[in-house]
């Protein structure tokens, strides 16, 4: 129960930081939704990084590495280490400048202005919002699972989910962007400490890593985990498209508008790859090293399930395969290693680090609230009729409604469905990224090109989620054809349709 108490203390601290960050601030929409565009350099870097880290970063990455080996790091971490800072450098800075100059608070506001359109912007809003909802539901589910695990089953799943949802809702409701950013900063410091401490404690407990690696290399079953021989280079290559999704996520694009000065992007883009390395490298390494712990019963059971899965004939029933896959899943290997090698109080502190990762849905809830109030409420004259205070109240009410609906769905639906939906959402946002590139860098782009991309992405996400293996051409992930077709549609449709006025285009891209 000690770890659960430490986690509750952590939740109390988070609540305090989130709620009191907003105290004494003006009640304007810009202050509530964008922290008054005034975040300082450290909060901007740490919070932006924390916003992009989810439960998958700590638990899922170790679980993926447990099953697939060191390839997890280069597939998901080092590819992001290059692509995300580049998109922040080229796109994030431009979004910041346009937001500052024209007062934009969401990407859709910018698209509407750039392409002189109204309802097409609403269509983009609808697709962006639909792709974001599964993340919020997954956040509630992750909270329930993590609190149940950390308390040793004393806190049931429904209560754990409710506690986490209530804490997140409270600080987003009261603290807005400023509260969310401060909480994310605190959480990122916890993430960064988590990896290093876990590595040292577990390494000592295992009797040193050199010996562990030699034992893995000595077995033909585990030696391939230390190479990438089980993965095709094409499949590996296609993973470099996934991080394009980051800048297209509304909560990341909106966060780019919160910096006080553009210079704050400088440190962010330099330190981002280092932060990725500091968090992912220990988690992936520990996930791989867990394969040597055959004397730990929970891990031995997973390894046996994996061997049984590999030996199953292709004709085996799908239920049997699914059951073995669940048993072999390694999402909790880091927790098991901590349970085995760390003292109770440290396991509690590290549990708080894991909760920090699980509670990453705050930015997405706030982003959806911002999008709803700006792209729908304000756009369709709500603010003009009722005033800015009502707009902020509407945003807060939306936060409550969204959390309640997400909780209700999370308690009823099976987790697998939403985990899958999140995977498709990554591809969907990556395929939406040409919208930003075209709006900011191509004078020839048009609203009809944007509409074609939006409809294509909506169709492709629905299609790939219904038809297994769809669009996985030449052994590539579906994200590659989805993104390339988006680019082609933007070019072809824009060339065939009328452009916005030259005055509008000049405000975005200087004529050469």
């Amino acid at each position, binding site marked *: 129960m000690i770890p659960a108490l430490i986690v509750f203390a952590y939740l109390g601290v988070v609540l305090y930081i989130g709620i009191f960050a907003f105290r004494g601030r003006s009640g304007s929409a810009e202050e509530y939704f964008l922290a008054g565009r005034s975040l300082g350099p450290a909060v901007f870097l740490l919070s932006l990084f924390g916003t992009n880290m989810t439960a998958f970063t700590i638990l899922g990455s170790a679980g993926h590495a447990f099953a697939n080996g*060191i390839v997890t790091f280069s597939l998901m971490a080092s590819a992001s280490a*290059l692509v995300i800072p580049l998109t922040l*450098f080229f796109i994030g800075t431009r979004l910041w400048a346009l937001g500052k100059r024209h007062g934009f608070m969401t990407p859709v506001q910018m698209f509407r202005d750039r392409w002189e359109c109204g309802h097409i912007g609403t269509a983009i809003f609808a697709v962006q919002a639909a792709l974001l909802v599964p993340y919020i539901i997954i956040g509630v589910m992750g909270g329930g699972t993590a609190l149940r695990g950390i308390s040793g089953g004393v806190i049931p799943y429904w209560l754990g989910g409710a506690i986490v949802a209530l804490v997140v809702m409270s600080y987003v409701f009261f603290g807005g962007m400023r509260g969310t950013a401060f909480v994310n900063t605190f959480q990122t410091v916890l993430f960064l400490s988590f990896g290093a401490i876990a590595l040292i404690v577990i390494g000592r407990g295992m009797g*040193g*890593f050199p010996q*562990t690696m030699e034992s893995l*290399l000595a077995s033909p079953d585990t030696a391939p985990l*230390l190479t990438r021989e089980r993965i095709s*280079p094409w499949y590996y290559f296609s993973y470099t498209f996934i991080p394009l999704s980051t800048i297209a996520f509304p909560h990341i694009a909106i966060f780019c508008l919160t910096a006080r000065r*553009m210079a704050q992007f400088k440190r962010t883009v330099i330190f981002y790859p280092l932060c990725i390395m500091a968090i992912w490298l220990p988690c992936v390494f520990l996930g791989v090293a867990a394969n040597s712990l055959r004397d730990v019963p929970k891990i031995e059971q997973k390894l046996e399930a994996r061997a049984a899965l590999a030996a199953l004939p292709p004709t085996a029933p799908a239920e049997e395969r699914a059951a073995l896959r669940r048993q072999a899943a390694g999402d909790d290997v880091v927790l098991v290693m901590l349970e085995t090698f760390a003292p109770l109080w440290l396991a509690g502190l590290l549990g708080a680090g894991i909760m920090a990762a699980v509670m990453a849905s705050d930015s997405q809830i706030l982003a959806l609230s911002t999008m709803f109030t700006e792209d729908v409420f304000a756009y369709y004259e709500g603010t003009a009729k009722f005033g800015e205070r009502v707009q902020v109240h509407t945003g807060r009410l939306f936060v409550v409604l969204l959390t309640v609906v997400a909780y209700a769905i999370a308690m009823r639906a099976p987790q697998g469905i939403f985990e899958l939906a999140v995977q498709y959402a990554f591809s969907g946002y990556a395929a939406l990224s040409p919208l930003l590139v075209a709006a900011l860098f191509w004078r020839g782009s048009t609203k009809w090109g944007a509409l074609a991309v939006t409809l294509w992405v909506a169709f492709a996400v629905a299609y790939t989620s219904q038809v297994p293996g769809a669009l996985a051409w030449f052994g590539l992930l579906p994200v590659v054809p989805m993104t390339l077709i988006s680019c082609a549609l933007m070019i072809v449709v824009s060339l065939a349709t009328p452009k916005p006025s030259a005055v509008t285009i000049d405000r975005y891209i200087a004529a050469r």
Partner: protein
Amino acid sequence: MTSNRLLLSAAIAALYLLHQDVWFWREARPLVFGFLPIGLAYHGLYCLAVAALMWVLTRVAWPAHLESAAPGGPEDHSR
């Protein structure tokens, strides 16, 4: 395109290609520091190289004109 821009574009393209390190595809050894498989150590180093590239980009190709055109920047004459 200026020679600086050309060099930086080439550096970005080179780093993107270096991510596809087929030369360490089937190798686990040498174990760097005695425990890090070479494929993992390479990508750890890769992250450091990206940070260095980003540092160079912020020094040489920083889009300062965007900031100066924003309200409150040097080119803002609205107040």
